[in-house]
């Protein structure tokens, strides 16, 4: 597999519950830097201190294996923060529908925070 990991996988903790956060991206899509910053800010806002497993996805074969629908993708405890209705696994840039109905190459911070809160609630 040609996936490149930026960090050793670790579990994060929030009030004794386990949170596993994964960030997947493709180099070809320019929004991943900002997306990772939004994830960091969202985690801080939710009081979550955790390492983020960062994976760069380079091939469609790896996209299939990882169930990767495009860059950037944030997975919290195994669940995509915005699961698509009809997933298509490929090395591509991903579109998010944000709160005001716009399409964006970036997940919004409210979207990320909602997913983090949901994961905290489920685990507690």
């Amino acid at each position: 597999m040609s996936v490149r990991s930026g960090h050793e996988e670790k579990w994060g903790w929030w009030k004794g519950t386990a949170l596993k956060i994964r960030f997947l991206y493709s180099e070809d899509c320019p929004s991943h830097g900002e997306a990772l910053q939004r994830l960091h800010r969202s985690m801080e806002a939710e009081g979550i201190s955790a390492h983020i497993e960062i994976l760069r996805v380079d091939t469609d074969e790896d996209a299939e294996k990882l169930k990767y629908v495009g860059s950037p993708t944030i997975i919290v405890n195994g669940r995509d923060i915005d699961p698509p209705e009809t997933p298509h696994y490929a090395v591509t840039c991903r579109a998010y529908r944000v709160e005001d109905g716009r399409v964006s190459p970036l997940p919004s911070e409210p979207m990320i925070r909602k997913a983090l809160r949901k994961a905290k609630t489920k685990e507690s």
Partner: protein
Amino acid sequence: MSHLKIGNEAVAFKLSGVDGKEHSFDEYKDKNAVVVIFSCNHCPYVRAWEDRMVQIQADYASKGVQLIAINANDASKYPDDSFPNMKERASVKKFNFPYLRDEAQSVARAYGAERTPEVFLFNKNGILRYHGTIDDNYDDPKAVKQHYLRMALDAVLAGNSVSTDETEPVGCSIKWK
């Protein structure tokens, strides 16, 4: 980077549009400015910018400006970018400019386009005066600080030099066959 440099002449083309007609660069020679934008259906950067493309055409049409969008993506790997889907997108988003299919990808290669969206603005003499991105914020139209394409159009229409004549195109890579 683009094969076309600022100051170069436009590369001629003749491509099929979603309106069922063939379109060439020459048919717009009476325009004061022509904006060729390499675009597509699937790319989220295009999808974030396309309402702004429609607005720019609406705002500048009376000043003799013509936008032309060209999709050169490999639709076999990206079926959202197929010609039937292009027709649907143009209808749903009410495109007020031609949306053309570069099936052979020859126009995109000739221009040296690499991204979607990627802008090439030509003056009334067909000379490239601006190349790059539409503005400085793909994510939020309300947070745009630098309206690069609009600023370039204003300068070209006034007969002035374009102060920022080149920016880095931001978007998805063109999907080559």
